[in-house]
């Protein structure tokens, strides 16, 4: 079992979701996130005073999958989120110790699917 965490551009969420649906990955959690990477920030100004904003709005997607789904999921996220520009985001894949479905008490591989 793996946990895939992806940070993407907010406006790419729709495309990513569509690509994920195509490879039968329909379960995910999405949250708002702020992040800074190579993209650097931008400047705002409030009543003439400069504000440097270097934490940009991003979307964090978390998907827990069984091993065989790792490759298709990662590929789908890349396909949906990639524009070729700095700021497209990152994907982290980590091992997942366990997974329990609260309703039924199922654990492990069965609880994920």
């Amino acid at each position, binding site marked *: 079992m793996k946990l895939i965490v992806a940070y993407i551009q*907010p*406006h790419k*969420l*729709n495309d990513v979701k569509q690509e994920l649906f195509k490879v039968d990955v329909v379960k995910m959690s999405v949250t708002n996130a702020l992040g800074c990477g190579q993209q650097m920030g931008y*400047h*705002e*100004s409030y009543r003439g005073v400069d504000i440097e904003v270097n934490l940009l709005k991003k979307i964090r997607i978390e998907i827990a999958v069984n091993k065989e789904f790792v490759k298709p999921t990662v590929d789908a996220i890349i396909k949906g989120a990639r524009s070729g520009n700095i700021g497209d985001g990152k994907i982290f894949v980590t091992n997942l110790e366990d997974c329990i479905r609260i309703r039924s008490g199922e654990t492990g591989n069965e609880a994920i699917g």
Partner: protein
Amino acid sequence: MKVKRIILFVTAGLFVTTTELFANEVTETLELHSQALDMIWLVLAAALVFFMQAGFAMVETGLTRAKNANNILMKNLMDFSAGALAYWAIGWAIMYGVSSAGFFGTNQFFLAGADSSLFRDWMFQVVFAATAATIVSGAMAERTKFSSYLVYSVFVSALIYPISGHWIWNCDGWLANAGFHDFAGSTVVHSVGGWIALAGAILLGARKGKYFEVAGKKQARAIPGHNMPLAALGVFILWFGWYGFNAGSTLSGTDLSIGLIAVTTTLSASAGAVASMITSWIWFKKPDPSMSLNGALAGLVGITAGCAVATPLGSIIIGLTAGILVVLSVEFIDKVLHIDDPVGAVSAHGVCGAWGTIAVGLFANTDDIKGLFYGGGFNQLGIQTLGVLSVFVWAFGIGLLLFISIRKTIGLRVSETEELQGLDIGEHGSEAYAGFQIFSTQ
């Protein structure tokens, strides 16, 4: 005997003179009071109509996304402010100056030679000009360059609105002479704004992500507004201001039709809200809040032309029709024509304004104007239709021309990156909701 007669004569003479003096004084006082009533009523009504700017700002902000809120507010502030300056310099003169063949005015630029009654009238008219200008902001929301919008604002208040306004509201205008009746501006104000908005929305193109293709067929995606309470507050403010808009258009505080006008305005707005709620309930299975709010505005726009000549029952029918019409029109423009109008301005102001103007030819019931349903025949209906068509050709045509010129010179639309990030950051370098986390996934 003789003495008595003389005394009687003198007394009678004195009585006649004092009565005459007294009568003159009464006439003068009455005249002064009636002038004072006009002054108070018109300036008060102008303030009410001015407050509609706040209504438009809130409706448009509420029905669009959080990332563009500052931009909407700036547009609403500036189309009034820049527009008022333009209307002082040029607009008033073109609308109410001495007519050149019924097409445009030619004097009183910069309010030359103004007296107190002209100041009063200008004050009442400038808020109408600003209303026409601000209608366009909503239809072009979330993608228009701010500088381009400023240029547009000046042109609409200085030229486009005053010229068609001259035709109808200047007593020597060609439509006025033909007997065209638009009491408070269904056509003069709302349709003009609506048709320019249509031209703008067409030339701008849709917001990114608004339409997508499935199997070669273009489909509309909903882009929900970010704050319905603000949109609702805006509609209530507009409704409140409309009592100045319609009842103020008596142009006189001693005109006793103010009562009827307030009643027809209220009934039509209510009927519009009810009708669009029912229409959306049947069509979309649930009573849609945003559409019902549009319905109230549709009813208000619809009754604006005929508020002084329609009966209360007539105003209800006008409102009901406008309420249904606005839903049909919003759906048609979005799903069939694929023109992106984020707040439904073209439908509420353009389409329902045209309907309200034509409705005068059907529902008018006074000694001067009789509509078709009250035995007046087709005459008034024909004149009303002619007015609606002429103003459509003028406003839509010149709107296209203006926006094409702007697009060719300074550009009409922001870059794609800026649109995605939000116009607040791109155009104004600041955000409306500092300290809030906002989903900007669209």
